[in-house]
């Protein structure tokens, strides 16, 4: 398995770094202050391959706290609200797209 840092980094728009929290698997986003947040609104935005690489490097260094960091696209809406940039990230943020049937009493 090549480490994410060895892979070529290409950015096509605003991006973030995301991972899963080691102890419980929760979705986390890398912040601008060397930490992680479960809130997408607190994610650090990168716009160039160099910025992305730097953010990814510091994320990968936190092997204890986070598993499998990678770069993901986002959309920035008018007003600055950050939204997931593809279906996969939408599902990671919002949860499954399906409705689970309740069992009748």
């Amino acid at each position, binding site marked *: 398995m090549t480490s994410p840092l060895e892979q070529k980094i290409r950015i096509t728009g605003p991006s973030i770094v995301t991972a899963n929290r080691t102890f*419980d698997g929760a979705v986390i986003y890398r912040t601008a202050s060397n930490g992680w947040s479960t809130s997408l609104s607190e994610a650090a935005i990168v716009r160039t391959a160099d910025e992305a690489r730097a953010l990814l490097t510091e994320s990968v260094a936190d092997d204890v706290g986070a598993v499998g960091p990678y770069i993901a696209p986002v959309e920035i809406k008018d007003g600055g609200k950050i939204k997931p940039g593809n*279906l996969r990230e939408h599902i990671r943020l919002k949860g499954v*797209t399906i409705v689970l*049937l*309740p069992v009748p009493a």
Partner: protein
Amino acid sequence: MYAYDELDRTLINERVEEFRDQVKRRLSGELTEDEFKMLRLQNGVYLQLHAYMFRIAIPYGTLSSKQLRRLAHVARRYDRGYGHFTTRQNIQFNWIKLAELPDALADLAEVGIHAMQTSGNNTRNVTSDQWAGVAPGEIEDPRIWSELLRQYTTLHPEFSFLPRKFKFAITASAHDRAAIKIHDIGLRLHRNAQGETGFEVLVGGGLGRTPFIGKTIKPFVHGRDILSYVEAILRVYNQYGRRDNIYKARIKILVHELGIDKFAAEVEDEWLAMRDSALTLDDAVIEEIRSRFSYPSYENLPHMPEELKKAAHDPLFERWRKNSVFTHKIQGYAIVTLSLKPVGGPPGDATAEQMDALADLADKYSFGEIRVGHEQNLALPHVAKRGLPALWKALDKIRLATPNVNLVSDIIACPGLDYCSLANARSIPIAQELTRRFANHDTAELIGRLHINISGCINACGHHHVGHIGILGVEKNGEEFYQITIGGRADENAELGVLIGPAVPYGEVADVVEDIVEAYLALRERPDELFVDTVKRLGVGPFRERVYATR
């Protein structure tokens, strides 16, 4: 049911303690993720899109009611109240916390359930026919051999770091309900001309990026030699399987690259060198394992009890009975399949409440035993026919009596992009929509046996290659698209499906399946010509025409 003894239980407990220590060392940083990942996989722990996933083994698909209740407990205590039964007779929980896993494993160990080797590059859950031990015409109970294999492959020091995963399946019936031809090693139990029990051994079956139907490597291996023969296969694979490319690392690729004859010769050489070794099974050992399987004390019951005669006037009961109830080898008893494919529901899921209620019903109607099938349904294997009407009412209350077993809405689907980080596209919503389109049971019965398999990516966990209709999710320019194949089958006449044309977008898949079904209904020779036989007779041409005429 196999009764774990103190030795089996000790091993499971030792494994739990080892994993507890490994989790501790991971969380403290003593183990890096790179060092830990394979260890957690070997305990069934994946990382999915939004949480860890925990895959628990249900060896050869057999559960006691006590064990099922414990699975319900795990669902409630450690997860979000439901579990998913898989195409390999395992159960998966999708929201588990790594830090709590050792406790969940300890709770499961108390009832003899484990998660050893349900993932990782090792030998996985040995699956079998979910009707083992109760199907008419079976040679003998294949679960005895499954258990021998399970023990032999568990924590095997030589084969815990194979080039890639390794899957076994065993059948003992003429009709293969275990899909042995799409496994790395498939075993068909039978008797030779001398009346001795042994196995036809097939190797190199498997789906994924390069699907292959398994090839016979040896038509008869005597029961006493099966472990040494399997060891020979595994040793050849361990040494020569490719490790340079994970997409070419399964044994099917080695068999394909060497050719079956050369591969068989390598195995034979290795086997002859080790043949009469400590792995040879003597009759006493086989009997020992056999004696740990307990069977119900069946009563002497009539073929047609009064209760059944009376209930025959109820058309809903009759519909369910004709669909979900199957012939048992003992007169007066039946095998009951429980569909986990309710209309609009995610296929193969069960809530903790359903599991608990089913455990009670198993105690009352099935000698406390439940089975899990690779088509993601459950079964009660020993139901006295006189109990069927009352059982049906109880199952219906908990939504386990949808009369769609083996029909078009009995869909096999992987979790797909809703859960899985490997997926390209979602599979569950496609399945849900299809169950809604074909919700009318009269229509479904008119169509007849039709297996739809959906995979969210080329790893093919939904077994789409061997679906009568196979649906494969792909990604095109950030959108979900689906390739459709038809004519596949997973049984003793296993075959891979054929692509009917270009991939179609998410919103059109259900329409395409309806078109395919309409084409079948128009083209079939007789009402009882199955879909898969019509495809065989006519090829994909007429179906392709119908589907792509307006697309």
